[in-house]
């Protein structure tokens, strides 16, 4: 884990093969799409802004009780560079943190990119898009930063839980309290920074191309919040359907009409347990990659038509 509470950089070896393979496969086309929407001429600007985020993470804010917090920066980048460019900058930061600072793993890079550069950025952009103008804008800045951190952390916890790491209700509750505290600190720091940036040069902020809508902003923010908090707590409990089946004593009546080719994340071939799991992971990776590449191509063709 990074030394920074709340920014959970998942290391290699924590996630199970199907989870890291699926998230790697999901992150690759998403980064490709974000790169396609980012102009190469902007690369020096994005690189220096990435360096700014590193520097900002070295500047501590007093958080009370002798502790301090610092900016994580995902929401700030989304609001100043736009979601596509922010995704690219955060991906570059994550690559550098993985390689140079041992903060996160290479196989888990897809998961970290998915959590922070995709979920984190879009969870910030959605409330900002609708609340960025008018008298609610400070609340919009806070909501963007708060939800960005909370959604990223919740996604990381879910991935760890799905990978088989046992977490009980107490652990999930303590983690949720830490994440919410970090998210509040991130929100307050972001509001302080954004207010000053506005005074210095409002042109540095991305202006959403939609009309501000307080109702839509609140609805979008609430949806992201519900998703992050709800899924975090649900992940601590057993699967709802399985639990219901067990309670009703229906397990013995289970009839299998169709045997999935990779049930229980194992390829049905001869060989050891490792080779079956590895092959299932690779097959899943290939299928998701082909699906994403196909959908991406269709989208590009539809747009150019």
């Amino acid at each position, binding site marked *: 884990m990074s030394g920074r509470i709340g920014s959970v950089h998942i*290391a290699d*070896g*924590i996630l199970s093969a199907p989870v890291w393979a699926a998230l790697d496969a999901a992150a690759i086309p998403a980064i*490709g799409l974000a790169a396609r929407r980012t102009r190469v001429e902007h690369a020096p*600007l994005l690189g*220096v802004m*990435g360096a700014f985020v590193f520097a900002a993470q070295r500047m501590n804010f007093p958080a009370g009780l002798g502790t301090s917090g610092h900016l994580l920066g995902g929401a700030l980048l989304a609001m100043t560079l736009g979601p596509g460019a922010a995704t690219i900058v955060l991906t570059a930061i994550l690559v550098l943190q993985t390689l140079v600072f041992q903060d996160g793993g290479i196989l888990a890079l897809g998961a970290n990119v998915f959590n922070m550069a995709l979920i984190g950025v879009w969870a910030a952009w959605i409330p900002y898009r609708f609340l960025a103008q008018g008298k609610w804008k400070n609340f919009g800045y806070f909501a963007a930063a708060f939800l960005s951190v909370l959604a990223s952390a919740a996604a990381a916890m879910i991935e760890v839980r799905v990978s088989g790491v046992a977490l009980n209700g107490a652990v999930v509750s303590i983690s949720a309290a830490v994440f919410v505290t970090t998210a509040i600190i991130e929100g307050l720091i972001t509001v*302080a920074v954004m207010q000053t*940036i506005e005074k210095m040069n409002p042109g*540095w902020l991305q202006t959403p191309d939609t009309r501000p809508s307080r109702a839509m902003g609140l609805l979008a923010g609430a949806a992201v919040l519900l998703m992050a908090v709800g899924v975090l707590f649900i992940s601590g409990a057993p699967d709802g359907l399985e639990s219901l089946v067990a309670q009703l004593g229906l397990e013995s009546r289970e009839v299998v009409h169709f045997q999935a080719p990779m049930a229980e994340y194992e390829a049905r071939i001869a060989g050891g347990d490792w080779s079956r799991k590895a092959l299932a992971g690779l097959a899943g990776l290939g299928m998701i990659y082909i699906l994403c590449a196909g959908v991406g191509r269709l989208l590009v063709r539809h747009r150019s038509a």
Partner: protein
Amino acid sequence: MGPLARRDARAKLAAALVFLVCVGTTPAGNYQRMAALAVVAIVWIAIARAGLFRSLFKASAILPFPLSFGLISWWVSADPTLAVALVVRSYLSALVVVLLMSTTTLADIFRGLQSFGAPAVLVLVLQSLTRYLQVVVDQGLRMRRASISRSGNASRRHSLWQRAGGALAVLFGKSYGRAENVHRAMLARGFQGTFIALRPHALEWRDFALTAVAAAMSVGAAWR
């Protein structure tokens, strides 16, 4: 300079990836395979002359994350098997990344990533980020020192937040201005959208041999 440092970054990246996949798919409780993979990593550190104890120490930076999840998992499930697997898998993976980084320059790794299909804009951002990282971080630390020197730490918490927020916003503005200057200077010197490689690498048979031998060792260690 050890023999691995002279090899192409792409060969080392591919070999490291095979090792990481072997470690990442090692099931909990298979200590024999974990030991075999640890031996493979140590052999490569010795071949690279990367300094065994230095590498072991550097890789230990990763330990707090798997240790926390491992201890939680042990506490909740009362079974230490998964806890050991999390720690060993994470540590072995970190060890190989330390070896990769101690035998390869960042510039070579970025070029390797590009030849593996990473988007050009991402590679350019990585190159700019590493080039200006120290400059911007130093500037931020200087500003923090100046702020503390002028007003101390004893003022009200609200003003401390405002001051820190203001300092970050000013750093943001300075970084933005620096980026625009850098971009203009690059255009003035004929920047065509790519950084020029001073030492272009070409894959040799030794690079292919390195990948093949390293991959065979990793898969051989894992196939038990």
